[in-house]
């Protein structure tokens, strides 16, 4: 076997070790400031070897959803449920809504969504971004008559220049 091919075997082994390491949340428990860890993370971003595989693990949390209300200059209001055209739109927009549950990301993401919606409603003077959370009872509670329901989480009102007007 030529040396070049031996190197291929070595790189393949390194790649697989990285996949195994990162799948154990290596990025969380290692020293992030270490230059070797940083280099591995950057390499992993390109090779796909730095992923965590936590699909629906360790469990599922309540589902967030966002609804919008646009207020026009003449005082009328319109309720908007953001739906895309492609079948995968819902899965992707729900990903963004998932990040809205993080308090530190809430301001910037809700302002971005407000700005995005306002582009489609040039006559609007204000938009409300309101997040609700779907509460699902466990099977025991469901048998005892409890049912799925939505609970208000927070809302933010933005002006046309996306300045924050009010929040709750």
């Amino acid at each position, binding site marked *: *076997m030529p040396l070049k*091919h031996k190197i*291929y*075997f070595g790189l*393949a082994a390194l*790649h*697989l070790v990285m*996949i*195994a390491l990162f*799948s*154990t949340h290596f990025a969380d428990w290692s020293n992030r400031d270490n230059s070797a860890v940083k280099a591995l993370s*950057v390499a992993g*971003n*390109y*090779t*796909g070897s730095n*992923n*965590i*595989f*936590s*699909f*629906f*693990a*360790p*469990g*599922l949390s309540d*589902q967030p*959803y966002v609804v919008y209300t646009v207020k026009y200059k003449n005082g009328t209001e319109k309720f908007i449920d953001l739906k*895309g*055209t*492609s*079948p*995968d*739109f*819902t*899965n*992707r*927009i*729900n*990903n*963004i809504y998932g*990040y809205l549950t993080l308090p530190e*990301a809430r301001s*910037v*993401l809700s302002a*971005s*969504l407000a*700005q*995005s919606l306002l*582009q489609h409603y040039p006559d609007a003077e204000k938009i409300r971004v309101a997040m609700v959370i*779907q509460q*699902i009872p*466990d*099977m025991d509670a*469901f*048998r005892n008559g409890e049912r*799925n329901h939505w609970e208000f989480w927070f809302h933010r009102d933005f002006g046309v220049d996306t300045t924050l007007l009010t929040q709750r």
Partner: protein
Amino acid sequence: MKKIYSGIKQLFFKQEATETLGFFRIAVSGFALIQLFVLLPDWMSFYGPKGLLPWEISDALSTTQTPSLLFISNLLQPLRITPEATVYIITTAYLISLIGLLIGFKTRLMGALAWLMHIVLNTTGHFTAYGVETFTHIALFYCTVLPVGCCWSIDARNRPHKIPGYLITLSVRIIQLHLCIMYLACGIEKSMGSQWWNGEAIWIAMQQDQFHNVNIDWMASVPIVPNLLCWSTLVVESFYAAAIFWGKTKKIWLISIISMHAFIGIFLGLQLFGGLMILLNLAAFGNHCFPNLFTFNFPRLQTVIQLFKKHGILKTSIGV
């Protein structure tokens, strides 16, 4: 000790069919093309400069050091190319490279281009990306570095490959072992949550509005059903790495994991994710579990056809 050494040698040097890599390339590029067309109506919402999340925001919140559409747009700005035009250029390059990869024309170059374009798009759209993008990225990386153009490609037709068998085997093993590590990690992480032991994970997933494709209220009265579904998921994922390589269980395990992903696709509305995972499993282990799957040589089926012909059921000759 000798047995272990011989096992490892067998694992990495036993000849694998080149068709496995050909199928992998076609499956990945074909899937990425379908995904591109599925997302196209909302493309600018996901990746446009004024999409759901403006470029500046998605870049500022990005944790990776990979190039984004904003980065490329800034590079192209001196040429008076607008941000919108940058999206069109990158998308067109992605489309062309995927077609090139599918037919196996300049396979390595096309694979690298598709992989890079996907990185650029995914860096910008990382807030909307989920598991399907993770695996598309991984698969496109393998299309770049592995000899996936060695079979069923224009390149192979023009110039038959001279790649040693052990490199074909190594390539197939990398894909296989990646899947094995992934399922093991998934199984362990799931088993750490109580929801996967008491059936609540399936119950909650199927009750969530985003996944609520069928009414499963009846499951609350028959909790053994979600329990069995959860336990079987844990078993199939946790023991995948061992069972898929063991001769006695490999077929049932491949069928089980494909069924699991089909369930995810149909009942949780994650058709793209389910479809990609089915293709990756088929590509990685299809030929291993069902020999001659990619060479379309099924001796038993041929025997049945011969039998049919003999009894006059099939009048014409059918080649399989």
